[in-house]
């Protein structure tokens, strides 16, 4: 099908890209600027902040903590979120609307309040605060997002495919494993990525339900009290570069998947 050039959406996409990259470019410039204050014109070039960043072990430690938590949350939230998406879309049970609404309630509660509430509950139940409770808290925060991401493709899913699989001798769970989930995988994967990002950047729940845990957002949030040191900007610039390169590496795969799932 011939696709001509629509100038308006193209212009908006271009503007969107500039808008997306503006802050990234800005703080990268500042991360090479000697002055710890963020204003133009830049007063020179230095890589001291990067040196200082690598010297400061705290960022390394909290990075490991944040990645560990985010990875575990990604796995748990994706499994539970996907199952709940099936419940919302396919279950034929009484009060389903109410239960589905209940399932999305955590979305509406401000994170700060959710954090304080979770901590009180964990202590009351006698759960020792620590890594486990942070992961649990983040799973409660992130799972509704995963469910939303999986629900869209699930609504469009052609039920005849499941019927065909069953008809050919696959039991209900084999059908799920070999037909339904692989076809829904793009939605599930973007839900998983979202869960990882939400947990990785989350501060409040990590602070309140954690103990002896200093996640990266906690460190950054606390550092900014005395003025966000350029070392944090250096970290941000570095991590963006690393991820951008990784994304370009994985691009061919993503392209094939995008084409595949047309």
């Amino acid at each position, binding site marked *: 099908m011939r696709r001509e050039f629509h100038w308006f959406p193209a212009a908006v996409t271009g503007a969107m890209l500039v808008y997306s990259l503006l802050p990234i470019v800005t703080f990268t410039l500042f991360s090479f600027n000697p002055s710890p204050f963020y204003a133009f014109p830049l007063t020179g070039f230095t890589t001291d902040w990067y040196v200082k960043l690598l010297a400061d072990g705290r960022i390394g430690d909290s990075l490991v903590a944040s990645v560990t938590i985010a990875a575990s949350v*990604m796995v748990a939230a994706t499994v539970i979120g996907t199952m709940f998406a099936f419940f919302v879309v396919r279950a034929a049970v009484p009060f389903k609307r109410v239960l589905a609404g209940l399932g999305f309630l955590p979305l509406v509660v401000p994170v700060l309040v959710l954090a304080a509430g979770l901590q009180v509950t964990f202590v009351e139940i006698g759960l020792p605060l620590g890594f486990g409770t942070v992961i649990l808290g983040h799973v409660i925060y992130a799972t509704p997002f995963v469910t939303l991401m999986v629900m869209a493709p699930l609504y469009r899913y052609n039920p005849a495919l499941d019927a065909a699989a069953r008809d050919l001798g696959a039991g209900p769970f084999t059908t799920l494993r070999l037909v339904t989930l692989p076809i829904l*995988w793009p939605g599930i*994967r973007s839900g998983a990525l979202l869960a990882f990002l939400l947990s990785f950047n989350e501060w409040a729940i990590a602070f309140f339900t954690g103990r002896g845990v200093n996640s990266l957002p906690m460190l950054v949030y*606390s550092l900014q009290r005395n003025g966000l040191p350029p070392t944090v900007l250096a970290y941000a610039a570095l991590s963006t570069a690393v991820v951008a390169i990784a994304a370009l590496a994985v691009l061919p795969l993503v392209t094939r998947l995008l084409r595949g799932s047309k």
Partner: protein
Amino acid sequence: MKRNTHLISAPGPWAQSRRDFLKTAALAGVAGIAAGHLGARPAFAKASKIVWGTNADYAQPDMLSPFQKASGIEVATEYFSDPSELVTKLRAGGAGVHVMTDGSYHSDITYGEGVLKPIDTAKMPNWDKMIPAFKTAGGLAFDGKPHGIPYAWGTDSVVYNFDALKTEIDDLGALFDPKYKGQIAMPNGLFESLVATALYLGIEKPFAMSEKELDEVTKVLIKQKPLVRSYWNDIGDLKNLMATGEVTICWGWKMLLDIKQHGIDVRWAHPKQGELAWYDAAFMTKEAEGETEEATMAFMDYLIGDTYGAVLGKSIGYLTTSTSAIAAMDKDLVKTLGLDDYDSFLAKAAWWTSPTQPDLYQKAWDKVLNA
């Protein structure tokens, strides 16, 4: 820890998306190893370990390593940007923090929440070497028993950019002068704007204002609001405002002078109406018992020793309360920080203690913010 769910490890002919699953499994694998490693660390820690709830800039690695080497006690940290965040957590219990930083401006509220324990200054050799004025400052002892060890202090007053204003300032009124419209910054946190305005209006007890006085202060602040460029949330925010020229005059903290080294001619005013003095102190929480109690007190003593105070001044420009630390610092650093004649600062400053009815102050400040 590693979640080996049915979904991920199953083979099955998913030709197209198999690489995704390997990638997800790898991530989960990493999580397993890292968590295991982190989980295990506490178990192998040295005999005693304490957790310090504080601001990140008070607990930089080079500040803690001398104590950890000397005493063999590991000091873990739990960062917050505002002491009230930690207090909320301590109130619920199970926070696992043994010593926390709180300021004169907030310690009464924290004590009121019943999360602190008294300490024994006899066990702290450095207590006698502290600047005398801090031993008797308000907000350190409750029910006659000492609770806090002040280790950093400062005063708050009007700070202005001489290059921009070209005149000396010695009156709080400048903050309310329309001449400086759009160039003023006022503090957002800790009800400090209310207190500063109380000083300006000559109210006798800025920390125990009656509702009427609070209303008066609120009216003045609402009138001032159009002149204000921004309410700064913390010292970092304020430094940025002054250094980037967003504002030229503000009510600020002593550490703001730190930006002089970046070629900005900031001057400290000694307004006629007076200034505020505050300190940050270490307090022992009720979660410290037995062994951790001893370790906590040893650590609190270290904070007012000569090494910690010196590093504090050098790296982040904070003022120490320990005379031995001042002696250990090099001379011109002492001079730029104004530590050489700390009496002149302390003489005119009123100790900033937490307000008697915090909710009244909060309601007043809400009115200003919501206006």
